Every structure is written in structure tokens, then in C-alpha cells.
């Protein structure tokens, strides 16, 4: 469903590259992990999928849609097909957990009835029903990330993009977050995740793309973390 065709991103007038000649594709319902050292280009790939960053050359397709040709006015609609989860959670600080999730639905133009029905459901899915009315600053890191995941899935996107979702979490919270992502994937949503947590990769036993200095050096269908 996502195709990268010979994509490069160059900086400083071509002297340094974030990613170089990247070609790969992601099939529906896959759970893909992208691993690599800091600066290997993992986040750049995710940013390009959500059209936050544009490649210098090459093409990116989301199904039949050329991502870089989406006019700016259509970007909000495009982004609603993709759920995003970040290392730093990116929750709205002045909204409660419930409101953060509801906001994503409101922005999508969902009705009040749908919001009242779906938000408690996803909160239950991430096991945060009793923290619904807490503000982000009152939640632990793991809880914040679970709110972020709930927000990412509430609009039933085709794909979840997770950039280092466990980067700021302790081992127990990491385990919980990965279990939730795995559950979401089993329910039929494609998940693309970057990480450099060896334990997470080895435990998942799913496809692993290994990157180094902007290039893909390894692509294993049931990979281990090897660097």
C-alpha cells in the first residue's frame, strides 16, 4: 500500500544525504519495523509518508496517490488516513485525554454521537478508562503514549506510523505499548514503527528494515535486530 521508488533527500545542496535511493514497499496488514542508529534516516522516511517532508528525488505512493503531488489544501484529508504516534507523544497540553482523542475525531468531521461512542471504546482498548479526564501532565509516559495510540486509531486509519514510540518509556510501559500496537495490527491495521530497541524487535519477530547512513542495508521478513 506504500511504495518508495528510488527516494533521496539531500541537504546542503546535495553534499549530504538524509536518505539515498530508498526503494521498498509495504503491504496491507504488515507490521514493519525500521531500525538503525540515530541519523540513519528512519524518521525521514516516516515524515515523507505523512507528507511533512518532501524528497529531493524519487516518488512516494500511498496506494495510487502520489504523496508529493497532494495540494496543500488536501493534506488534512490525506493525513486523516494515517494515524501517527511519536516519541514525545505530541498530545495537546490543554486538553484532557478524552478531549485529545475527541479532537482527532472532531477534526475529521465526525458526529457527536460517534465521538461519544468511539472515544470510550478506544480508551478501554488502551486501558485508560479511569484516566479519561486527566490532562497530559497528570499522566505517566506510558499512559501518555497509550492516549496517543488511542488518538491515532480512533478514526480507523489504514495505517499507523509510530516514530520511536517506546523511546521515552521504561521496560514495562514499552512492553504494554508494543502489545497494543500488535493488537491493533492483528485487528487489521498496517503498522510502521521505527525503533532502536533490540528487545522489542526480537520479541515481535516481524519484518525488519535495517538502515545505515541513509541506505537500506537489510530487509528481513521475520528479522532480528542486527547492527
Amino acid at each position: 500500500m506504500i511504495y518508495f521508488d528510488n527516494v533521496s533527500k539531500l541537504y546542503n545542496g546535495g553534499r549530504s544525504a538524509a536518505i539515498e535511493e530508498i526503494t521498498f514497499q509495504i503491504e496491507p496488514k504488515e507490521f514493519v519495523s525500521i531500525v538503525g542508529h540515530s541519523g540513519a534516516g528512519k524518521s525521514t522516511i516516516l515524515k515523507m509518508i505523512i507528507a511533512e517532508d518532501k524528497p529531493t528525488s524519487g516518488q512516494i505512493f500511498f496506494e495510487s496517490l502520489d504523496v508529493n503531488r497532494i495540494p496543500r489544501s488536501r493534506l488534512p484529508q490525506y493525513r486523516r488516513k494515517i494515524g501517527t504516534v511519536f516519541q514525545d507523544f505530541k498530545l495537546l497540553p490543554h486538553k484532557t485525554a478524552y478531549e485529545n482523542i475527541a479532537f482527532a475525531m472532531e477534526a475529521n468531521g465526525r458526529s457527536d454521537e460517534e465521538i461519544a461512542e468511539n472515544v470510550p471504546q478506544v480508551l478501554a482498548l488502551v486501558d485508560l478508562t479511569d484516566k479519561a479526564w486527566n490532562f497530559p501532565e497528570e499522566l505517566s509516559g506510558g499512559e501518555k503514549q497509550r492516549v496517543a495510540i488511542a488518538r491515532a486509531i480512533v478514526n480507523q486509519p489504514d495505517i499507523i506510523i509510530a516514530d520511536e514510540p517506546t523511546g521515552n518509556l521504561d521496560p514495562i510501559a514499552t512492553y504494554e505499548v508494543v502489545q497494543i500496537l500488535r493488537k491493533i495490527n492483528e485487528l487489521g491495521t498496517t503498522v510502521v514503527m521505527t525503533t532502536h530497541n533490540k528487545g522489542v524487535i526480537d520479541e515481535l519477530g516481524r519484518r525488519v528494515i535495517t538502515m545505515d547512513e541513509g541506505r537500506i542495508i537489510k530487509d528481513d521478513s521475520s528479522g532480528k535486530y542486527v547492527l
Partner: protein
Amino acid sequence: MITSFRRVLRSGFVGFWRSAYVSLASIFVITIALFVIGSTMMIDQLLVVSLQQLQAKVDINVYFVTTAGQDDIDALKTSLEALPDVAQVTYTSREQALAEYRAKYQSDTVAMQALDELEENPLGATIAIQAKAVSQYENIASFLDEQKAQEEPQNPIISRINYADKRDSISKLQAIIDAVERASFITQIVLIIAAILITFNTIRLAIYTAREEISIMRLVGASNMFIRGPFMLQGVMYGVIAGVLALLILYPILVWMGPKTEIFFGLNIFDYFVSDFSNIFITLVGIGVALGLVSSVLAVARYLRV
């Protein structure tokens, strides 16, 4: 459509309360800016009134000879009144002039005796002319000079026109009025520009603190209008509240200033404030709302790009 409008409204109000410190700080600064604009309006009104009063004290007098015919005087008065530059023409008859003279010098026995010695009223009729603006006296004076020049030598009407005596003081007054008006205009422009910049910067800072939120909203697929709306509403709320606060601060100051300005300028500024309140209210709150709205739109626009 209605649903998202309602959501934007609610989100704007909730955001206003939840970031109360930022809201308060913005309102405080905008209030000061609007207070400065309001004070400028009041000072300008005092200047306008006192300049008007100053102008009203200036006139040209035409003194007629004692033998001037009433018809000729009336004809001149009518033609003066027809001039576009003339604001008012006041006629004083010979009898009135005498009565005024007697009233003025009644304690001066020598003058009274001298007057009684005369069999006939020595005073001629006069016409006092006020122009609409100080600069127009020159035109009126030259019109009068023409009239005097056209008189038949054996039958004179006008004895004297006192413009020449007053010319210096009139042109000095004109210079003062021009200078005061220019200075007050420049001061107002400077203050208004300062108020606009202060408001814009304040709101820009308030929205700067929300830049992270704006980027998050974009990431979850919120449309630009959905993101911008609550900030626009908050800008309008800042403007309305600041406008009302500025008027509330102005009120006691004007109550206190009122009697003092009445003595000094002849205008009770508080009475003016009360009588023209709806205009002042609309102006201040309107400026506040417009500033708040435009500043919000411009400030959010920065973070909506990419």
C-alpha cells in the same frame, strides 16, 4: 458545517480559560493600548473645542460713518452674509453702540459728561464679521476693501475696517492653530501605530506558545480553518474585553478631569464622554476586535505553512 462552527466556538472559549495567564497578559497589554487611543481621542476633542473657542474670539469690524444710510448698511450686511467664507454677521446699530458705550463707561464721569455735552450720538453703526476659518479673513477683508473703493466720494458709508490692525494677531493665531493640529495629528498617528504593533506582538507571543499545539493539530488532520478558528475567537474576545476595560479605566479619570477641563478649556470632557459614549464605545471595542482578529490570523498563518 454548523457542527464545526460550534466546535470552534467551544474550543475557543475553553482555550481562553485554560490558558488564562496568557489570556490575561494579552488583555492587559491590549487594554493599555486601547486606553492610550481613547485618551488621545479625548485630548483631541479638547483641542478641537479650545481651537474653536479661540477662533470665535476673532472677528473683523466694519465701522460705518454716522451719516450712513440704513439701506446701504443692510445691503452690505446681506452681501456679506452671502459670502461662503462668512460664518456670522452681527449688526450693532448706532443706538445699541451708544447704550453699550454708556454701560461700559458708566463709572467714568468725564466720559459721561463729554457724551452729554454732545447733542448728537457720535457713534456709528458697526458690523462684526466672523469667518468660518481663520485663514478666510484675508478674503473677507479684501471684499470689504473693494466695497469701500466703490463708494461714491460724496456719499461715504464705511468709515474704517479694522482688519489691518488685527492682521498680525490673526496670522499668528493661524500659525498656532496649524501647529497644534499638526502636532496632535502626528502624535495620534504615532500612538495608534504603537498600539497596533503592541497588540500584534502580544498576540503573536500568545500564539507562539501554542505553536506546538498547532503542529499537532495539523498532524491529526485538522483543516486550517478548524485550527485557526479558536485563535480568531480568542483574538476577538481579547479585543472586546480590553475595549470594555479601557473604557472602565477611562471613566473615573474623566469624572475627575471633567470639572477641571470645564474651567480650563470650557468643555467638560466627562459630559462629552457620556454624550458621545456610543461612538467612543464602538470605536474602542471595534479597534480592539479588529486588531485581535487580524493579529490572530497573521500569527497563526506562520505556523500553518509547510
